[in-house]
């Protein structure tokens, strides 16, 4: 394969699936720094092993499989076994990602819908999302900042995510009509 062609094909696959790969790693690893390290490693391995990828199969499934292996290696390296998930649980999560891959292709539409939904939120809610997802603060830091409890912040964020999920689904359904 011509190197430029290889690069182009890899990028096309990778860009289409990178969010799903990040999501599967995020579903297993909660430490944002470790998650970033793993994603870097996964991207490097995918690029190096791209010649071994069988185009007749799903790139996403292949990439997610490698990502899960990298998660296992990272836990093993860090010897953080109490924080690690059981392999059976990881397999169940991986299957769930594989089974719902087809429904999760429309990241761009979802993002556009989300942007619209966030725009309609009150300022306090926007500020909460900003602290959690733009600045990457921990829940404890947010609770200290807004002088509240962990549980209260968790409940507020849960309600917010639930409302946004429903809003996004509603907008996608409307757009599909």
């Amino acid at each position, binding site marked *: 394969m011509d190197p430029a062609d290889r690069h182009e094909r890899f990028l096309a696959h990778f860009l289409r699936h990178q969010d799903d790969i990040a999501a599967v790693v995020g579903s297993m690893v909660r430490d944002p720094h470790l998650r970033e390290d793993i994603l870097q490693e996964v991207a490097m391995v995918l690029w190096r092993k791209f010649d071994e990828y069988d185009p007749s199969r799903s790139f996403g499934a292949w990439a997610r499989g490698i990502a899960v*292996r990298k998660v296992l290696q990272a836990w093993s390296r860090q010897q953080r076994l109490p924080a690690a998930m059981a392999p059976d649980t990881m397999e169940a999560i991986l299957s769930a990602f594989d089974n719902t891959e087809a429904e999760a292709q429309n990241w761009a539409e979802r993002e556009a819908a*989300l942007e619209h939904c966030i725009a309609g939120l009150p300022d306090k809610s926007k500020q909460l999302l900003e602290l959690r997802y733009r600045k990457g603060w921990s829940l404890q830091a947010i609770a200290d900042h807004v002088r509240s409890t962990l549980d209260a912040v968790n409940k507020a964020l849960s309600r917010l995510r639930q409302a946004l999920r429903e809003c*996004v689904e509603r907008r996608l359904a409307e757009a599909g009509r």
Partner: protein
Amino acid sequence: MNQELLSEAEVDRLIERYLDGLLDEAERAQLETVLRASPEAARRLAWAARFERLLERGMRRPASTVALPIPPRIRRLPFGHWRQWREHAWGPIAAVAIHALLLAALIRWVIWPSSSRRSEEIEITLEAHPEPTALERPPDMPRDEAAPALPDSAVVAAQRPQIPEPTPPPGPSTPPLPTLSSATGPAVPSISHPLVARRMGDRRAVVEREMPPALAAQVEQALHDGAGWLATRQSADGRWREAGADEIGLTSLALLALSARGEAVRTGPLAMRFRAAMDSLAAAVPTNHREDLRGMVLRLNALADGQTIARIPRWQMALDQVAARVLAAERPDGGWGAAPDAPDPVLTAWAVVGLRIAGALGVEADRSRMAIARAADALNRSPNPASGLLYYPEPAERSAAELAGLAGTVLALQLAGEGASARTARGLRALEERWNEPTRRLRDPAGLEAAWLTACAYQHAGGAAGLRFYARCASAVLSGQRSDGAWPASDGRPSVRATSLAILTLETPWRYPPAAEWPALAAAVMSSRLYALR
């Protein structure tokens, strides 16, 4: 417990708390049980994780409209303000003057002297430190006339590079070796990289004194004859060829063996052969974009080892490239090899040795450290019986290939910093027990590589067991040498591969210091800045 006992709302609550990092141990166990038992719960987590990713992505996007500050209007300075301008002009004028001085100094001291150097044949050598520490003290080098003499035929051949090729290889004809410079080494006095200092001068004699004198003399003679035979088998283009062997891998192996001769390779009669082989390896380009993995890791070893003897920029570039290729060929779960289930311990050992030497030269040091740690991890977890560690003490008998795998595992772990681990110690004990009847073992095609790997593992471990093994193994290797200096392959014919591996095995005590000393050596080189471009 399964999901039937938990409502959807309860599962969602657990997932939300998990995503926010608030689960305690009991809740975590509960969530894991539910995820395993219920595909629907796993699906909900997958969607929640996807939505979280979407939120991160959406929130980190830059705002579509940004209010830019309006710059203040710039007013043109009227001529009447000339006095104010003159009062404030000294600052910029002084800044311009200082910059001009700095530029002049740069041209005088940096650009001009470097452009006046010879651009070809720049070597990086070690300069003697004004006050060297014990670790950095240079060895006293023998003069060329004091170097061990090769047989007349080999010396004459070394002085005339256009020798007739002894066995024309099948395939395309080889181009003639271009005329080499008559210079055989740097004109300035230089000492070697600490990793190879044991092969040179007085340090060589120090190592020799630790061995029984009769054995040391026999080994020295065998190494001399073996290297001489290897030199006569080199093709005009610097390579070695043998039926059925990968050309790059074989050349790398022979070059590694040739460099056992230390001074003779750097500035003595073998210098031109060494340089021709290094040039050939530096220029090697795999024709089908799929370089043989074994050839690749051997090439890494040969280029890295060669760079410790004489550091030349064009070799350095090739070393950078091949180190990157070896790192890129790492298996997804660590180590090297083509098998789907586990790394190949022999290939992994070669790769780890090569990367450690390259790392000591400052090539891909950080990436290599991570890759070596992953390789050790993969070997520790490996279900491959050849690794020998998980299966020890069974089975009682092992083939030479399995011994090579076991020794390769131990060697890789030692160089990964796990030399003191119980597992490595267990592997060394297993090797000692399994290396019975070395002469019979060496008749196996994999026997010599197993012997070399085992000798290296013992060298890095140090202690009496290492000397015991070396004495036993060296006697067996010496008994196999032919009268012309070569070692035979399993079919009885003289072989470049067998001779190279036999030389490497015999030369183990002189080759590299034990692994535990490497970090201190590398730190000494880096901190004293001795290893400088001349």
